């Protein structure tokens, strides 16, 4: 350990910041380097550091400088609109498809549990009796828009909705996935996500992802009981 050339730490930090907007704390970076061989080239170190960061909880290892965090009053519903300059890194704690009822999602999960959605066995399907010929009266089908529960490095939570489709945002996405917000608009305490202001870094937090998947059905059921139409995306 400690056999790294001087300035290496800042080189890694610099690269993570400029390419991925990630600013790990000095403590984390030092701890990380202690686990690496001194002969490892810079690029490999950057890649490994990035991989570790994406697989971990950002509230544990990213700098909490005000500019890298959400404003403390981000959830204030009295503010009609403002823009976050960023870049701010957040992680996904929950996701929901607002175009689907919870019941619909529960039924889909249960069909999978019964093995009716798996390959190799016929899915029980409802053939449509609608006329095939008439021009489709186009109502958007398929997934989304999605609502995400997001968390910044200081642990602050906020909801974000897809104002326009953001690639990689889908019901199957990993919990703990990291997003970079830059110039994102906040309206009445909700982040309005669109490709221009939102980019995906990827990654996941294993234990959160597992728990989320396991509890999904229970959470949906609980959410139905409290049929208020809010607090959809997570816990």
């Amino acid at each position, binding site marked *: 350990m400690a056999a790294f050339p001087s300035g290496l730490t800042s080189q890694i930090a610099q690269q993570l910041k400029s390419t991925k907007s990630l600013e790990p704390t000095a403590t984390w970076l030092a701890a990380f380097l202690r686990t690496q061989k001194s002969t490892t080239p810079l690029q490999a170190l950057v890649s490994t550091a990035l991989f570790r960061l994406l697989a971990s909880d950002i509230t544990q290892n990213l700098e909490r400088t005000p500019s890298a965090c959400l404003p403390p009053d981000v959830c204030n519903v009295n503010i*009609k*609109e403002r823009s976050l300059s960023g870049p701010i890194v957040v992680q996904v704690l929950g996701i*929901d498809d*607002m*175009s*689907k*009822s*919870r*019941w619909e999602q529960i*039924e889909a999960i249960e069909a999978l549990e019964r*093995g009716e959605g798996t390959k190799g*066995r*016929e899915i*029980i*399907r*409802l*053939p449509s*009796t609608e*006329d*095939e*010929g*008439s*021009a489709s*009266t*186009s*109502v*958007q089908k398929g997934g989304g*828009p999605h*609502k995400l529960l997001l968390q910044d490095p200081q642990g602050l939570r906020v*909801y974000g*909705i897809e*104002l*326009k489709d953001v690639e990689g945002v889908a019901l199957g996405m990993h919990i703990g996935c990291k997003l970079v917000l830059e110039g994102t608009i906040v*309206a*009445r305490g*909700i982040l*309005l996500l669109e490709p221009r202001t939102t980019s995906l870094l990827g990654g996941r937090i294993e234990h959160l992802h597992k728990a989320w998947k396991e509890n999904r059905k229970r959470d949906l059921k609980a959410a*139905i009981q409290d*049929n*208020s*139409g*809010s607090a*959809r995306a997570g816990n």
Partner: protein
Amino acid sequence: MAPNRILCVAEKPSIAKAVAQHLSGGHVNARNVPGNQYIKNYEFDFSFGQPWGSCSVTMTSVLGHLTEVEFPQNYRRWNSCAPAQLFEAPIETTVAKDKKPIADNITKQARYAKALFIWTDCDREGEHIGSEVRQAALEGNSRLQVKRARFSNTERAHIVRAAQNPVDLDDRQVTAVAARIEIDLRLGAAFTRYQTLTLQGMGGDLAEKLISYGQNLPLGLLWFYSELFPGSCQFPTLGFVVDRYFRVKNFIPEKFWSIKVDQMRDDVKVQFSWRRNRLFDRGSVIVIFERCLAARTARVSKMQKKPTSKWRPLPLTTVELQKLGSMYLRMDSQKVMKVAEDLYNKGWISYPRTETDQFDKGIDLRALVQKQAQDRDWGPHAQGLLNGNFKQPRTGRNNDQAHPPIHPVNYVSPGTLGQDDRKVYEFVVRRFLACCSEDAKGEMTTIEIEYGDETFFTNGLIVLQRNYLEVYPYERWESSQQLPNFVLHEVFEPTEANVTEGETTPPGYMTEPELIGLMDANGIGTDATMAEHISKIKDREYVQTQPVGGGGRGRVPGNSVQQFIPTTLGVALIEGYDNIGLDTSLGKPFLRKEMEAGMREVCAGTKSRNDFLHETLDRYRDAFVRIQQQVAMLRAVRDPYHVIIFFV
């Protein structure tokens, strides 16, 4: 030299009579057959093609299957063997007792004949019945030549052609049906006996004890008649109904929100719908809506006018006839099939059991249209087709290689038919004429606007030519409100914008058309037997029917689409078996579907009868063993009046 004698045998007396009438030209002697009041022997002369030439003919019939399959005497008593043995026990095929006089008649008539012509219906079951007829005839005359007439309706010219161009019996189909009969016997006997013995072993006292033990026992207890055991097709059929029932019962409504934008223009209120349709999150909708309002103006982002059409229907199959029968004619599938069969036997329509939705290129459709031109109601449309509007029907994806789509073969004045016959005949004719007509044509205008961050749209339809719809009143396609003029990129301030709130509603209980559709999609039963399975789950009181919309309030019974609600017994059966946790529960369609697929393979010659039999029996034997191992989950007790389930 004495003329050749030919023996003809049809599947039922009505066909024997119709064929005899056509071939004889009306000069026919009918003789009674001792021992059966329905069967007649019709004697007449007819000139078959070479090598038979002019022949004296005896035309008779059977009444469906001649033989039955049973276990030998020593396996027949309930306690004679372990039920599982019935999967392997020997079986015997014998002529059914009540069919003996019919078989004897055939054996006797065959003695004097040179050849046997089989006129059973041209489907798998008919092929098998044909083989039974062949067996009976060969017993009387082993040198008999055996032929089969290929026909799909009882129209005169068609029958004469069939008589002169006989083919051979298809032994693959015979084999497939024989295998299916064997499987049904083994499964029915093994499962029924097992359940009955289980319930006898329990006795009433034990049952009462179980009740008093209350919630602590981890087993489900079912009370039902052992003879109510459903067959391997009725199980999944019932399963669909029960699944839907629970979907309705368990349903929880949820609120959703949407945004509507209105624009008054030229005294027309144009309503724009949100591209996102609806969202289940109020807060998000409000935020989005506020941003729409803040934008103040909307901009026309798309203006599109394009020709659109509503396609004429496909040629009619049995499954479609059954579905549409209950939708449009308000008849249940069994009734529709009965009426259609009657119309077929009388020679008005083609064979009503078919999977084919494409007309053969060789069939003279115009001649068939011509026959309908004399009708008061649809005649003018038929005439229009003959005068140049005729279109070759669309070609569907199915062809059973046995029968054409259902179509009228002769004209009959609807006034001379009974009410039900008239409805079904009219439907078959109108459907056929619709198939031969042009698609309906229209013009669809789509206007899309951008308002705030969101997109809204509206559609306007103008129906320009109704074409097939003229003769097919069962479908609707109407022009919508006329849209006023909008210009691309035009910016305007919407007259009104609102957030609307709605609530999801549960699905309806299973209706008959839906059930038929599901059975068809999952390969449960054949087009020929679906109606029977449905009627059986009704007869056995696994399900009850009620008119859609609650019923009761002064509705004429049988005058609306029926929906199925499972009875306590029906639910108990499915839950009982599902609780056993079979990977492929009997209540799910998978096992039966595989069996139907296997039969098709045997018919196609790609699988042997033995492979098919063993594979199928093995699968069900697995299920059987699982049930035995978990006997505690499923108990049956006889109780003549009540069906009670205990989840104790």
